[in-house]
């Protein structure tokens, strides 16, 4: 929602420049989720519901610990549990906190047709302003991480705000504050990258040779990053995309196709205008009427 006091860097469906004179000194922020520290307690999920006044339905159990089973307009973050048998024959239970990644190059914003329904703040947070949302669902199509959800109640799209309302007043997101193990940390993107390096070194020392940071370049990096034990196989973590990008279909649709087709349509109209102006109308003359009459009477 548009209760914000952060500078806006980008705005959906807006061709004019956004105010960009102020340069916030804090720079970009990031949330770092250390999957190797997470115990899947769902405190973050609950904190998110509490801070944002969300209450999902009381669902059913479908044979997994993931509850609710998927992101919804009421569940902006969910824990996803994946059982993985590693090549040594040992079991690993990979628990990933799923939610918006706050892409530097957000596909949702790119796809959104409604001016100001999606904004990106100068600090990197991608936020939905539901009062401007028209409920078309294009953001869902644009998101490489399958994050936004349309509400059945008000037909508007919702997702994690990275607690922009808290961050704006110098607080960490609610999930970060609540996480009992410190698996989620919040700070500047630079700090978080540095912190991640220390964590990765620790994981490597514990035998996770491929431990690494998930900050995918395909979307320009993200403001929510993961420390993964198996950074070479992100898909192990309940299908975290290996090389996420805004889908080429979406890029085409929202990219070159737009100006080209607009130009083509304008051209069609212009051609008509000039044709009319130069060649003139195809008129039926008196003569034509007579010829027609004549033809009939001849017969």
């Amino acid at each position, binding site marked *: 929602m548009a209760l914000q006091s952060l500078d806006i860097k980008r705005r959906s469906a807006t061709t004019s420049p956004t105010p960009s004179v102020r340069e916030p000194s804090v720079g970009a922020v990031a949330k770092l989720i250390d999957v190797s520290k997470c115990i899947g307690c769902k405190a973050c999920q609950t904190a998110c519901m509490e801070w944002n006044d969300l209450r999902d339905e009381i669902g059913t159990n479908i044979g997994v610990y993931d509850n609710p089973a998927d992101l919804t307009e009421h569940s902006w973050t969910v824990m996803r549990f994946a059982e993985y048998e590693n090549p040594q024959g040992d079991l690993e239970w990979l628990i990933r906190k799923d939610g918006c990644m706050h892409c530097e190059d957000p596909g949702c914003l790119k796809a959104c047709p*409604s001016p100001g329904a999606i904004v990106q703040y100068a600090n990197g947070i991608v936020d939905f302003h539901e009062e*401007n949302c028209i409920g078309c669902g294009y953001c869902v199509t644009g998101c490489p991480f399958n994050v936004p959800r349309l509400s059945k109640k008000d037909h508007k799209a919702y997702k994690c705000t990275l607690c922009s309302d808290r961050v704006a007043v110098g607080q960490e997101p609610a999930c970060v504050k609540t996480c009992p193990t410190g698996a989620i940390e919040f700070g500047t993107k630079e700090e978080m990258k540095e912190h991640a390096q220390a964590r990765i070194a620790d994981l490597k020392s514990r035998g996770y040779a491929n431990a690494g940071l998930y900050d995918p370049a395909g979307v320009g990096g993200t403001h929510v990053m993961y420390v993964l034990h198996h950074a070479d196989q992100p898909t192990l973590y309940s299908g975290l995309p290996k090389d996420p990008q805004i889908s080429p279909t979406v890029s085409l649709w929202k990219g070159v196709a737009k100006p080209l087709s607009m130009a083509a349509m304008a051209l069609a109209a212009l051609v008509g205008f000039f044709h009319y102006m130069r060649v003139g109308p195809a008129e*039926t003359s008196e003569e034509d009427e007579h010829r027609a009459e004549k033809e009939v009477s001849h017969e």
Partner: protein
Amino acid sequence: MSETTRPRTLPRYSASERSNHWVVAITFILLALSGLAFYHPAFFFLSDLLGGGYWARVLHPYIGVVFFVCFAVLALRLARHNAWEAKDAQWLKHFPDVLANREEHLPEVGRYNALQKALFYVLVLSAVGLLLSGIGLWRAWFSLPVGVVRAAALVHAACAFVAITSIIVHIYAAIWVKGSVRAMTRGDVTWGWAWRHHRAWFRQMVKGANE
């Protein structure tokens, strides 16, 4: 008495055909304008025609369905007149003459000329394309895999582009060829108009009339 002063006319569209056409035309324009509003930020203001972005989003698909149903009826009614014939190809070869208003150089034209027929087919195809892809995008009722929806968005935009461009041509043709609009407003055309633009159709019509 007035008969002598007024050109004689031929019926071209019945009242129901005309109504049908204009429902199609009006819905199409609403769809095109609202669609363009979604399509490009420069046109977002057009969404106000339907009560703002939110309502445009809600109404567009329903209007789309109305459009499609009416268009289908119209197209079925007129399909037989649009059957492609060998001479249509001939006619197309003389397209520069068409543009230059030199109809005398052209083969005789039946009820519709080749361009009209071509437009007819293009519209039929894009209407079907718009319907199917539109359903894919219609989140209020359908939820399809994201890959399908992405493709649908592209197809819908492409079909809309083709349809809108075609209709621009169609409308221009109505403005350009004087006397056509009357066919769709009053239902008849003058003998002269028919003789000039659709001579084969004219001959066929008057033959029947005289017998």
